[in-house]
């Protein structure tokens, strides 16, 4: 495992190096290209090419079919190194003597000349040119031989075209020995040649898709590459020759860079090894991958947001202790560093970068004149927008893939050909899989044989109605419980929290977490009444848990709103008190209307106004932490301890623990995925008020990933009934989108309608938070911009725009519906053609 890890890490670093190096080489080549002198005479450039060819020939002689001939060629070239044009004639003459590659080699050498003349810019790539030009001569014959047998007919014909073309060229160029600039290549030949080169390029790109053996593919690849190299230069004739060569080179480099970047990206997926291990050993490959995708997206997404404001504030803002809002007030100082206070996220943690209240409302900070309030606002809005985009893009992509394959037709074909899971590597899992396949075959056969009448359709319906009723009751009960608990906590807060123990203080969070732990199992039990197909049962289950969490979250938010209102009222009182306090400072030392020297007061002594934003942030952070704790405890107790209990007490227990109740636990797909989604929803809600929350969440995701992996490997058994979970992929994404929408609602509401606290945060002093934008427009942009903006935000302009968007949505919806119908029609026609 460590060996693999080192390979992974070194490869990771290597990929980064390669990527960066590619970029640098790219940039270097661009510069060099534009600096290169275009008037180098042919002789000199031929000189250079020759010498380079020699070097390359010796380096790469191990490849290719005709090794002997390579050495011979290099020797010939060494001899003919002296003069300019004579070199060409000599070489051609020697080649004529050398073998029967007459026409090809002649035209090859002519082509070589042309290539060199045209590819002045390619001096920076001596490798490929030099080698391939030379090898072109050698390969010409090899090409002709192998082409006939291997390539499909059309290409064979093209090759013959090529040959005749080469003959023509040879005749044409033999007359123009000395002057290789004007070639008699006509326009149509050029076009044909271009076509062929394009085709060869396409062949290279699709080569990996061909079901040939590797050796054959290698040969075809080499030939195609040679061909493309050789004739590409010739194509860049005339006006745009330099540009064309440049374009070709850039395309090549870009493709190489892209490939390296792909490698780098795959190396970046964390825990790739762990996932593969789990997949092969246990179960639920598709869902594990889904989870991992989530982790990845979320981690990535939020690293971004935290970094910008978080670190800028740390680096550039005034440090702790200099401003009143950044200091722990005198009254709380005594307990500021206690663990209990810190765990509660008050005390020192409250007056830190983690929360909204720490940020100063100065318009610009630091020597960079960084606009902190503006950036805070924009980053908050931007992350939400980015999240929307990512989720919707993923959904669209998944929708494309899922398109084909409806469940009902060709049922048996699907079962026969696609039931085996090729990722299974464990014999135990394989046995399970065999059993489940057999069961599913037998079931399918039986179902086909007799139209299974619903034995008792009324009973089933009654049971289902009963189950739904019970579920509704549970939901209502949990909603009321939370409401009750929140009211109680408000009562506690009013009476002062110090009077109560730990349970009372954390009651809300604990109740929510406990509900989240027990209600899903309750729903599971209820759903056994219903007797649905597992996939449908899963969806019902998910739907109910979804409703549960949603209800909880929204009750929580309503409770928060009450507290916010309380704090706002408190603010008015504090404001009044502050004016009195300030007056008392200057008591008797100032004559009226005189500017007094500012009296220095220690920041800790300044009376502080309440800060509802920080309070909201704190609540969310506490909720996240308690959620994390609940998850860990559930895993440890529910999986690990249970497994230990079953394993060790099995000997001395009345019934078989391993097969009956409780047995080992299976990996709970739906619970975990929902937990992830709701965790993300909370982060989205809270991150505006607690910028450090995403960072905390990243840390939590990392640790819980490792914990889960260990739990799965150690305590879980593969599922008994295995079904295609991947089709639910879009379902999860849809839920994520819905949660995203619901999470942004409260945040947006508070931004738009509640005034920010006067004493803390980057927006303090303004009437509404979004005023920071109008302030920026006034101060930082030229005046005409403000005018333009005010025209653009005129309702008379905005309303027609909204109307236009609604109309376009309607139109797109209509066209997509019609496409779907056309699709279905075609499918039906296809079926009827196949089975007349």
């Amino acid at each position: 495992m460590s060996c693999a890890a080192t390979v992974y890490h070194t490869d990771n670093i290597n990929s980064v190096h390669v990527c960066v190096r590619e970029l640098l080489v790219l940039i270097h080549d661009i510069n060099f290209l534009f600096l290169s002198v275009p008037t180098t005479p042919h002789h000199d450039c031929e000189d250079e090419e020759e010498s380079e060819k020699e070097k390359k020939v010796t380096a790469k002689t191990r490849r290719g079919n005709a090794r002997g001939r390579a050495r011979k060629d290099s020797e010939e070239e060494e001899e003919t190194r002296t003069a300019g044009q004579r070199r060409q004639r000599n070489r051609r003459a020697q080649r004529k003597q050398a073998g029967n590659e007459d026409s090809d080699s002649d035209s090859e050498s002519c082509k070589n000349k042309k290539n060199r003349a045209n590819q002045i810019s390619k001096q920076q790539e001596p490798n490929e040119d030099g080698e391939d030009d030379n090898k072109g001569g050698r390969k010409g014959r090899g090409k002709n031989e192998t082409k006939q047998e291997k390539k499909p007919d059309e290409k064979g014909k093209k090759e013959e075209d090529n040959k005749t073309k080469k003959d023509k060229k040879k005749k044409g160029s033999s007359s123009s020995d000395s002057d290789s600039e004007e070639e008699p290549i006509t326009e149509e030949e050029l076009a044909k040649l271009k076509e062929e080169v394009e085709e060869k390029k396409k062949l290279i790109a699709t080569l990996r898709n061909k079901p040939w053996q590797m050796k054959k593919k290698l040969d075809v690849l080499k030939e195609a590459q040679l061909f493309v190299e050789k004739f590409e230069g010739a194509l860049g004739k005339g006006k745009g020759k330099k540009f064309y060569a440049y374009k070709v080179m850039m395309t090549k480099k870009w493709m190489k860079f892209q490939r390296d970047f792909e490698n780098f990206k795959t190396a970046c997926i964390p825990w790739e090894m762990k996932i593969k291990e789990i997949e092969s050993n246990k179960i639920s490959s598709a869902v594990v991958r889904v989870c991992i995708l989530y982790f990845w997206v979320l981690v990535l997404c939020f690293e971004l947001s935290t970094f910008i404001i978080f670190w800028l504030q740390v680096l550039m803002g005034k440090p702790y202790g200099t401003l009143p809002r950044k200091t722990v007030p005198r009254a709380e100082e005594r307990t500021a560093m206690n663990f209990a206070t810190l765990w509660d996220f008050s005390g020192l943690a409250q007056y830190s970068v983690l929360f909204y209240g720490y940020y100063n409302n100065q318009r610009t900070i630091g020597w960079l004149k960084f606009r902190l309030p503006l950036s805070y606002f924009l980053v908050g809005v931007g992350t939400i927008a980015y999240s929307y985009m990512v989720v919707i893009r993923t959904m669209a992509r998944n929708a494309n893939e899922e398109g084909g394959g409806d469940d009902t037709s060709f049922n048996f074909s699907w079962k026969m050909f696609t039931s085996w899971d090729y990722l299974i590597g464990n014999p135990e899992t394989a046995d399970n899989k065999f059993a489940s396949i057999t069961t599913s075959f037998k079931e399918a056969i039986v179902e086909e044989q007799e139209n299974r009448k619903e034995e008792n359709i009324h009973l089933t319906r009654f049971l289902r109605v009963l189950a739904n009723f019970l579920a509704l009751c549970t939901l209502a009960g949990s909603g009321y419980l939370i409401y009750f608990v929140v009211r109680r906590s408000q009562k506690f807060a009013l009476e002062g929290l110090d009077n109560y123990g730990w349970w009372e203080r954390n009651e809300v969070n604990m109740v929510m977490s406990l509900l989240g732990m027990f209600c899903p199992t309750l729903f599971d039990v209820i759903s056994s009444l219903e007797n649905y197909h597992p996939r449908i049962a899963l969806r019902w289950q998910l739907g109910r848990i979804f409703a549960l969490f949603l209800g909880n979250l929204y009750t929580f938010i309503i409770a928060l709103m009450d507290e916010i209102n309380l704090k706002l009222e408190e603010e008015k009182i504090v404001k009044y008190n502050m004016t009195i306090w300030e007056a008392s400072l200057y008591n008797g030392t100032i004559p009226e209307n005189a500017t007094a020297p500012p009296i220095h007061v220690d920041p800790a002594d300044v009376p502080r106004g309440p800060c509802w934003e920080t309070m909201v942030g704190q609540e969310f952070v506490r909720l996240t932490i308690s959620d994390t704790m609940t998850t860990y405890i559930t895993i440890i107790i529910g999986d690990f301890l249970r497994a230990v209990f079953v394993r060790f007490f099995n000997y001395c227990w009345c019934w078989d623990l391993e097969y009956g109740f409780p047995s080992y636990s299976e990996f709970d797909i739906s619970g975990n995925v929902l937990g992830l989604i709701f965790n993300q929803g909370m982060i989205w809600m809270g991150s505006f008020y607690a910028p450090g929350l995403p960072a905390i969440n990243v840390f939590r995701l990392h640790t819980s990933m490792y914990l889960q992996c260990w739990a799965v490997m150690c305590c879980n058994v593969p599922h008994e009934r295995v079904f295609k979970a991947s089709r639910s992929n879009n379902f999860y994404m849809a839920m994520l989108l819905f949660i995203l929408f619901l999470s942004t609602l409260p945040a947006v509401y508070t931004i738009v309608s509640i005034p920010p606290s006067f004493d803390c945060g980057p927006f303090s002093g303004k009437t509404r938070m979004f005023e920071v934008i109008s302030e920026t427009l006034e101060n930082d942009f030229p005046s005409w911009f403000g005018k333009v903006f005010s025209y653009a935000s005129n309702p008379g302009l905005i309303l027609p725009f909204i109307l236009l968007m609604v109309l376009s949505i309607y139109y797109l919806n209509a066209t997509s519906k019609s496409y779907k119908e056309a699709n279905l029609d075609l499918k039906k026609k296809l079926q009827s053609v196949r089975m007349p």
Partner: protein
Amino acid sequence: MGGSASQLPRDLLGEYQELTFLTKQEILLAHKRFSELLSKEERESILQKRVPKSKILTLPELRANPFRDRICRVFSTSEDGDGSMSFEDFLDMLSVFSDSATSEIKSHYAFRIFDFDDDGTLDRKDLEKLVNCLTGEGDETRLSESEMDQLIQNFLQDRAVMALRPF
């Protein structure tokens, strides 16, 4: 084992990347796993060696697979037909089974794997063998004769004997 990375020449690595659906790391990993199957002396000339089928089947990924024999046979390029695989065959196999391979090439090879008698068609005998492989080796899991008949009957109702192309 870090030395195995240096044994695969860079240009060859580039070509393999071009010709398969694998990334560079995956090719290097495949190289490592393949060289573990060879004895120490043979590791020097890894590209020319063929590994016998019995050794390939010890790989954990293939061990539990019911189609392991067919897979080895389909991807092997040995003239004796003994199912031994060279490194390039191994890479081919990994490329086809990888996530990024297109469905065309996957379906092509799937057809060849399921075609137990190599006659280019999937007929009744092939299907029987296929179902038996899927339901495992044990007696209790196998389908009975009548069940098998029924299954194949239903399947063939869906389509007639299939040839390579429409698959």
